[in-house]
């Protein structure tokens, strides 16, 4: 089952989950906002954002915000299809002529490079540069981004990247155009691994130390014109990028300007006002308080909605007293009130209740609700009955870790209220934003439960969703993703079996079944899927979402201006 992000141009009065999920075709006509109109050549697109990008170096950075930015300046052997294509989660060739050719045993993958591909300094990109760029992922200090290259590609024991160790012999470059990878074990989705941002080519011997922190070597349609950390990034055209070699990036505007460090409320105010150059501006999700202001016809027309691809969930630490009893976890699953959680997170326009781990827009999603209740407000009776069976009729106290950030606090308070109904007292343990993931990812510091979220690294399968969260063999002392610390032989076995399947459609169906199988044990409680609601400037066009490249936000590569003279 292929899924397609829906582009709705107007706010539907009551957007239902089903509608948002399987709406089908891209709808050009509705609302008349012309988001998907073909942009004209030229002009500068402005991006208003709160937080600075993590790193300009793709071996270091790896998150929703920066991955999308990388797509403007970097290319890889493969990449995600543009947001405007029929299936934006599809992996397509980029620097490579075609997708990889796997050997019969699935261990050797061969790619051939296109002609005419160059860096921004005019030097050609050959297999040596591709290999060099990929080998940077093994550097202990630089390769802190996406882990998949290191997990999948075979490398000598103790290899520490090109600067410390040197050449990576397991990637072969028989000639300038050909590159051959050897894998540790068969990985049918290897094309997706090479679309990860840290597979970006760089000139041999460049990028040591902090070289790519403030300046970069671009391979995409734009290069860095100006960078003031925490303040602005300006991109200008890379004249050495040949559009003939690139089927993914339309790259209509002449430049991009990112304004960083703006207060989220100020961003919304500017977008609503739409003064001056702000007609050419786009930004991330709007604030809940902005929603009621978008009810005028002019503003309604400018609202752009995408379904979310990240699940917000509450992990239940199965090693703790009471929570080691499946009945208690199921009772909590019954007692949770998803209506209050969605409302606390901005209401039905910004979030949809989730009863499954895989969100609707990730391939493999299966629709089910193991712990149903009237209007999703929770089944108090069922929960009490289970607690009674577990000998906890009088309830107990649990500590919930939450990030000291407003929306997550609100979610924590909603969970607290819901569980109080069945006699469970929830104590909120506030953890500073900057140390939150570190703390809950350290089992020795983790409490009974924690609210967090997960997004897929590629949405064409659940391979980056279920295994990291539920594989019992991946419980680490630090940086642990399996918050429930569940180690169930059945689940582990299924993860291996499905991961080895080469038929992706069949694999996706089974991922959906596994989702249900996992939730029967209730190691986590899915809470909601946050939706994306945007208010692009009125002169911006070519707005499509991409689950892979933009984590469900606007795919920058298709964006441009309707009238480049404006603003």
């Amino acid at each position, binding site marked *: 089952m292929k899924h397609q992000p829906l582009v709705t141009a107007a706010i539907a009065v009551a957007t239902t989950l089903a509608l948002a999920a399987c709406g089908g075709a891209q709808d050009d006509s509705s609302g008349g906002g012309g988001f998907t109109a073909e942009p004209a050549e030229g002009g500068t697109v402005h991006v208003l954002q709160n937080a600075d990008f993590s790193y300009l170096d793709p071996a270091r950075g790896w998150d929703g915000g920066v991955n999308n930015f990388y797509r403007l300046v970097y290319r890889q052997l493969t990449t995600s299809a543009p947001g405007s294509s029929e299936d934006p989660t599809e992996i397509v060739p980029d620097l490579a002529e075609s997708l990889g050719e796997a050997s019969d045993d699935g261990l050797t993958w061969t790619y051939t490079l296109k002609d005419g591909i160059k860096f921004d300094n005019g030097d050609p990109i050959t297999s040596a540069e591709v290999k060099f760029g990929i080998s940077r992922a093994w550097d202990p200090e630089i390769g802190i981004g996406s882990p998949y290259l290191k997990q999948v590609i075979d490398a000598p024991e103790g290899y520490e990247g090109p600067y410390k160790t040197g050449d990576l012999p397991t990637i072969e470059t028989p000639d300038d155009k050909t590159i051959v990878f050897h894998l540790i074990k068969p990985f049918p989705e290897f094309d997706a691994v090479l679309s990860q941002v840290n597979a970006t080519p760089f000139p041999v011997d460049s990028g040591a130390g902090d070289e790519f922190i403030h300046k970069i070597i671009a391979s995409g349609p734009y290069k860095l014109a100006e960078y003031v950390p925490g303040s602005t990034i300006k991109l200008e055209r890379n004249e050495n990028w040949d559009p003939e070699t690139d089927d993914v990036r339309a790259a209509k505007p002449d430049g991009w300007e990112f304004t960083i460090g703006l207060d989220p409320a100020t961003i919304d105010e500017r977008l609503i006002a739409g003064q001056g150059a702000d007609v050419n501006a786009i930004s991330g999700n709007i604030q809940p*308080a902005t*929603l009621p202001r978008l009810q005028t016809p002019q503003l309604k027309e400018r609202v752009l909605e995408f379904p979310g691809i990240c699940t917000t969930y509450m992990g239940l630490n199965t090693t703790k007293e009471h929570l080691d009893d499946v009945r208690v976890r199921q009772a909590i699953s019954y007692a949770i009130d998803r209506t*209050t959680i*969605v*409302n606390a997170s*901005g*209401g039905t326009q910004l979030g949809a209740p989730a009863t499954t781990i895989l969100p609707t827009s990730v391939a493999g999603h299966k629709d089910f609700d193991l712990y149903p209740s009237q209007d999703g407000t929770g089944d108090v009776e069922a929960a009490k009955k289970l607690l009674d069976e577990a000998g906890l009729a009088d309830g107990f106290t649990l500590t919930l870790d939450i990030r000291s950030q407003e929306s997550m606090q609100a979610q924590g*308070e909603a969970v*607290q209220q819901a569980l109080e109904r069945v006699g469970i007292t929830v104590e909120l343990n506030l*953890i500073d934003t900057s140390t939150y993931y570190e703390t809950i990812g350290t089992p020795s510091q983790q409490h009974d439960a924690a609210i967090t979220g997960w997004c897929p690294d590629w949405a064409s399968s659940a391979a980056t969703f279920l295994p990291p969260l539920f594989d019992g063999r991946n419980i680490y002392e630090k940086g642990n993703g399996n918050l429930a610390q569940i180690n169930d032989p059945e689940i582990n076995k299924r993860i291996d079996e499905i991961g080895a399947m080469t038929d992706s459609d069949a694999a996706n169906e089974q991922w959906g079944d596994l989702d249900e199988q996992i939730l029967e044990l209730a190691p986590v409680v899915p809470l909601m899927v946050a939706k994306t609601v945007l208010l692009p400037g009125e002169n911006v066009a070519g707005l499509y979402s991409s689950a892979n490249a933009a984590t469900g936000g606007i795919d920058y590569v298709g964006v441009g201006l309707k009238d480049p003279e404006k603003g």
Partner: protein
Amino acid sequence: MTSFPTDLTTAQPVEAGTDDTPEAPAAAAAGALRSGAGGTWQALRHDVGAMLGLGYIVLVTLVAILAPVLTSISGWTPYEFDQTAIDPNLGGMPIGPWGGVSAEHWFGVEPGSGRDIFARIVYGARVSMSIALSATLLTTVLGVSLGLMAGYFGGRVDLVISRVMDFLMAFPALIFMIAVLSALPAGNRSALLVVVISVFGWPYLARIVRGQTMSLAQREFVEAARAAGASGTRIVFREILPNLRSTIIVMSTLAVPGYIGTEAGLSFLGVGVVPPAPSWGQMISASVKWYAVDPAYFVVPGVCLFLLVLSFTVLGDRLRAVVDAQEGR
């Protein structure tokens, strides 16, 4: 030295500057201070501003003490969600005019959760007042005792205490307070807030107490006590401290609004009390995002806080004027 919490709030005892500078005589006619509380009260009673301020302070204090009674009358606890009072389709905005004001919710409800604002204001008064008053108490104790010690004993004691004061006053307190509060476990935030505020607050009082003590220590009645063989401690507590009473009362009253503002500001910056506990600062912080669509949500805690700060400032200001007049300045 005026701007204790850098640009957080300027309600800090700015006027302290007058006494602070070498220009002002450190303790003008301290003997006159003995005129007693009765006279001060007589003078204040006829001051409309001071009385209004005092009235509001008493009201807020009563509300804080009676919070459980008041919420049992209004029918909502500060933590209960009311999903019927908000509109899930509009970002969780309260239904109805004035932020959802109704017979059910007297001051409206909080967007997103539908929690009762009246209940949260009432309980928030508890948090805000108790933090500000505890901080004032702690600062006063610290400031007075250290100021007395520095002023009376002089020498090395004075040197050490004065250096510590210099150091604390040169310290960018706001940045530091936020950094420390966000790094420490949030377990007992209220106590932490009091401690952190007090640590950076006491030198402002201590400086003045020190100056006045130094000048009082030279006066005849102290000399006489010393000649009569009174111990240092006895002189400090029996002879000097009573003479500082007015100064301490005035300075403390003027410090309260600063601490209320600091607590609110720290809550505004996200390092205040732990949810779901309400404080006025936390409420303002949560409401600023909604000020354009739900101004009532912003106005209620904003006005409550503003009036409380104003009341303390006016009261302190008048108190000072009366005391100054009694001193014959």
